[in-house]
């Protein structure tokens, strides 16, 4: 009698027993032939013990190995600002900014339902020289009411706070460009957190009367994305795409002056930061005044910004990233490729 019962029990559970064996075969098969889908090139041939550290180190996060979206020149318009013009009081600078809703691929395969200025996150780099008159035609082609709030000194009815631009509406902002420095612009419709975090922000450079020293100029807007709506960012980037400058390092020359306009438009997290490896830079908060700090790490609160000037002493690959390790590993990391 007991025999009969045991057999029944075994019959019941025999299919279960086959699972681990089958699973093991499948797994070993896939790792041996490297038939798996490689999502971010890691060395599948690396053995499980001593060399596994290389696969998880930064070496895996450069060039093709970095999980970034798009081609090498996709972000050129955001990285390289338009040229500075000489001081000429009263000169009219006209531009059009259109708010649109679109899905933006922020990390490989991850699509963020964004609200954008001119289709990108961050929006276009706006540049003027002090005492220019900016005339910004703003068209709201999005599904929600929006504004553009420029930082600077201007009449309050041009501040993008009280005059909400409804869907399909438009408004032209006109104000003198001042003070000289590095500023930001962003939507100021409520709920504020939502409108900014969705992607409505950008860099705003006002060149001083006395032009800055000629340099290789770059714009970096630090941001984050909360993709699952829990009030915490899941991804961090500069200029909108995770690990983009790890995949496509920024090429500069040894000894040339490199100027970075750095702004923080991260939502949810109080601060963001920029840290340069293997060299130092001087930092001018808000791009105003004569006070420069000599450092390799700067911290910015939400909406803070400043100007960095670097002259690389050596050639090579120089990492830069947020010094919040979490932000670094969630996408905010890149390299300068310094050539002789």
């Amino acid at each position, binding site marked *: 009698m007991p025999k009969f019962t045991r057999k029944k029990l075994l019959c019941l559970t025999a299919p279960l027993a086959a699972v681990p064996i089958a699973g093991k075969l499948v797994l070993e098969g896939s790792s041996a032939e490297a038939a798996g*889908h490689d999502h971010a090139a890691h060395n599948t041939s690396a053995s499980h013990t001593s060399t596994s550290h290389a*696969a998880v180190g930064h070496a895996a996060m450069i060039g093709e190995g970095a999980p970034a979206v798009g081609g090498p020149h996709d972000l050129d318009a955001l990285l390289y600002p338009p040229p500075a013009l000489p001081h000429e009081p009263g000169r009219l600078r006209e531009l059009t900014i259109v708010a649109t809703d679109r899905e933006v691929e922020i990390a490989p395969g991850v699509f963020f339902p964004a609200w954008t200025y001119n289709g990108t996150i961050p929006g276009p780099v706006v540049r003027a020289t002090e005492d220019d008159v900016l005339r910004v035609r703003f068209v709201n082609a999005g599904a929600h009411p929006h504004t553009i709030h420029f930082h600077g000194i201007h009449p309050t009815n041009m501040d993008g706070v009280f005059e909400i631009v409804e869907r399909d509406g438009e408004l032209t902002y006109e104000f003198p460009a001042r003070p000289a420095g590095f500023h930001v612009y962003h939507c100021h419709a409520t709920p504020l957190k939502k409108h900014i975090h969705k992607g409505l922000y950008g860099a705003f450079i006002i060149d001083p009367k006395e032009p800055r020293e000629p340099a290789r100029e770059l714009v970096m807007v630090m941001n984050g994305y909360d993709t699952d709506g829990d009030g915490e960012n899941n991804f961090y980037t500069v200029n909108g795409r995770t690990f983009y400058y790890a995949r496509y390092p920024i090429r500069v020359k040894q000894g040339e002056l490199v100027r970075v306009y750095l702004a923080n438009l991260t939502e949810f997290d109080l601060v963001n930061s920029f840290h340069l490896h293997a060299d130092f830079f001087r930092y001018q908060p808000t791009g105003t005044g004569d006070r420069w700090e000599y450092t390799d790490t700067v911290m910015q609160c939400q909406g803070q910004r400043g100007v960095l000037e670097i002259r690389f002493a050596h050639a090579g690959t120089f990492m830069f990233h947020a010094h919040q390790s979490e932000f670094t590993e969630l996408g905010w990391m890149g390299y300068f490729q310094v050539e002789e």
Partner: protein
Amino acid sequence: MEAGSSAVGRGVAWRVWAFVPILLLAVVVGAFASTGDRLLDLVGQSPPPADELDIRRVEFRPGEIRVLARNPQREPITIAVATVDDAIVPFTTDGPDELGRLRSTRVVIPYDWVADEPITVGLTSSTGIQTTAEIGAAVETPTASARGFVGYGLVGLLVGVVPVALGLLWLPSLRRLDARWLGGFLALTCGLLAFLGVEALFEAFELQAGLPGALGGPGLVLLGVALATLGMTLVSSRLGRGSGATGLALALLVAIGIGVHNLGEGLAIGTSFAVGELQLGTFFVIGFMVHNVTEGLGIAAPAARERVSVTRLAGLALVAGAPAILGAWLGGYATNDTLAVLFFGIAAGAALQVVVEVGRYAARTTPGGLRSGAAIGGFLAGIAVMWATGLFVG
């Protein structure tokens, strides 16, 4: 002749008619499907899919983390990003990029994890929804080695077979008891089986709550309970030739009921240990031994009035105890939550059905029946003993 053939004709028509509702259903379904979502748009717009994955198992291998994930929703999900402790990490998968409904894939992440420390593994869908699994302590997952196989087998033996066998050694003492006391011990058997049944039922409901909606549901538990209850009734009527099992046959029923439960217990031990949730300490094993020794007593009580050979006793011990070994192996190397739910349902049904069988027997053989002090006291004592010895395990 004519009347006969028309009767046959009516019989066939009746059978054909039975297919008409099915055919009509197919037509209606087809018509509805061809309208696309237009009809549903009348009601309003559906919310987007949750895009949450079901992370079934996380395994730690040297320099590597393996995550078994399933798509629990109707719409397909694409795993776009893997994270470990809130850091984006490279990964490979052995399945398709886009996971269809209820499809699973194994995500392999090269990672230098730290032993014994908590770790959070996350998978992010293409819509940016992150599903995370928090592991209390990263511990290397046992692979199917001969050593581990023997180890799990030994644990199963220690918590299953050994205590049951020891408990059976009470048989000679039970033989000397008068009918009233023996009735008390039969009631005690009922009490402890009721305890095990409730425990298994609770476990089954808890497990099903964690399953994706399509796979889980209390109905699955009910299926398990019904399977076991009816199966045990069938076995009982065969063994007792229609009049309910007695003596050795009843002891066998009790052993089966306990065996099914011990399979679940072994499964739970093996799984928790494999995924690093359980400290498989000496005290834990001792606790289970103490807890399970009463199960042997439960099997022995119905057989107290019969001559039982040592071979048969050993057989009973194996039926009741050996499934713990099998469970530990299964839990240690593979888990299937859906089957586990069904399984705990079966364990609950089996235990509760045996309560009925033993109860009927006790009602016949105990002086004063089930309303006697011995029966009531024994039943309550059975529950109390299981609860008290359970303290050793928890």
